């Protein structure tokens, strides 16, 4: 709680007073952020603009990544999904873990990276049978991680709505997130769900200012948005989460 108050204070200092007077976002504005995660999904909420700072940062790394993936056929071909899964578990030869970390940062989601990694390699294993080299392996793996992320977001949302007892393995993922905020893991799941369904601009602004601890100027430069817009977006995200937190405590 102390840390939450400190974060709120830090943000409030960073956020221009004008931000507080902005109209609220329409409640259903991001209602479609999570859709079915299967091939029918045409509107990845997480679509990353190619000219974003993150994409630009990632670009120089791609030739090296490609070289490391030169042996993808040996890993993905001619085996059952379970066998492919065992290969992917053994030393992460396609470097999917680092791809997951990059995606989580780019998309500014609050998710347990291990869960995303496990779901990602499961998806890669299942759909390896369909992969013939197009699109390029990096792009194909990136799509698999995106789909895995959306799968998990949808699962978490459904689990919360169903209101049943959570799977202990899954709720364990929220323990580390919850502790510094003084929340119960179950309540943290609700906060993370709410955060992950905020508009991407709000998630990114919140992530940059409160999680990465960037200054407002640095966050503005990184996002290509004005400092005022970044501050307003972060403020809206924070207000949503604080309201939810209050709701949870009641």
């Amino acid at each position, binding site marked *: 709680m102390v840390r939450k108050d400190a974060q709120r204070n830090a943000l409030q200092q960073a956020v221009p007073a004008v931000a507080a007077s902005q109209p609220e976002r*329409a*409640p*259903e*504005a*991001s*209602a*479609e*952020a*999570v*859709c*079915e*995660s*299967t*091939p*029918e999904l045409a509107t990845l909420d997480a679509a990353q603009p190619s000219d974003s700072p993150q994409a630009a940062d990632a670009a120089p790394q791609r030739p090296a990544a490609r070289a490391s993936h030169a042996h993808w056929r040996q890993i993905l071909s001619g085996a*059952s*999904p*379970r066998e492919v*899964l*065992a290969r992917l*578990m053994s030393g992460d030869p396609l470097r999917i873990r680092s791809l997951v970390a990059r995606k989580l940062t780019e998309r500014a989601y609050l998710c347990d990276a291990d869960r995303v990694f*496990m*779901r990602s*390699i*499961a*998806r890669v*294993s*299942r759909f390896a*049978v*369909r992969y013939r080299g197009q699109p390029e392996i990096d792009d194909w793996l990136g799509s698999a991680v995106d789909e895995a992320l959306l*799968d998990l977001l*949808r699962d978490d*949302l*459904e689990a*919360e*709505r*169903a209101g049943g007892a959570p799977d202990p*393995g899954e709720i364990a993922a929220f323990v580390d997130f919850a502790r510094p905020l003084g929340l119960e893991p179950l309540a943290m799941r*609700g906060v993370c*769900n*709410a955060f992950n*369904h905020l508009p991407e601009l709000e998630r990114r602004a919140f992530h940059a200012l409160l999680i990465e601890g960037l200054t407002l100027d640095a966050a503005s430069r990184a996002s290509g948005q004005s400092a005022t817009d970044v501050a307003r977006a972060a403020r809206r995200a924070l207000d*949503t989460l604080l*309201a*939810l937190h209050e*709701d*949870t405590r009641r």
Partner: protein
Amino acid sequence: MITQAVRPNSRLRELLRDVLRDRPSAIDPRALARRIHIERGDCAGDAATRVAERELLRVHRTEIAYLLRGAAGLRREVLDPSALSSAAWRACMFEQLDCIALDGLRASDELIRTLERCAHGAVETWPSAVELARASLALHDVEAGRVALAEALLAANWTREAASSFASALARPVHGANFARLLDGLIEAQRRLGHGVRAQRLAECAASFERGGAV
């Protein structure tokens, strides 16, 4: 807890309760799960391997549920039943049957039979859209599955079952697009059942939703 989802207000909740009093939910999840299920085969290995294999099973389940939902749409001719799309669907069903065998998964006889009928036969010989949508929901209980089943029931003129499925789905928070779809389906079901006053009240809720007001 999810602020972005549409939730029914007290007026709509009361109407939904009335519908469900007429006929409780048409789905018995436990009975359904006994008939349609898929489980992992033997799994030896460390804890991480077991977690990864559990995730793989989920991916299989989700994919099968997705294929069955799509098959239900093709069966109802809601999706384009062109030769290309039904052939693509059959190929995916074949692929899934292969994966089940290769991974040593234990699927119920009814599920295997359903997948085989879809893999080998023309669309018109597939199980009914209701059966396909039910099987999908048994494997993966998600909003899209609940919508698919309610709509399949209505299309098959199982109007009371459709009404209770629409109402059960609406009683939970749902995304905006599905909310409107479910409410429209429920209104239609109520009209067909001769509950004109209730249909009118539900239509007022739908109009309020379209205006962006409270529902």
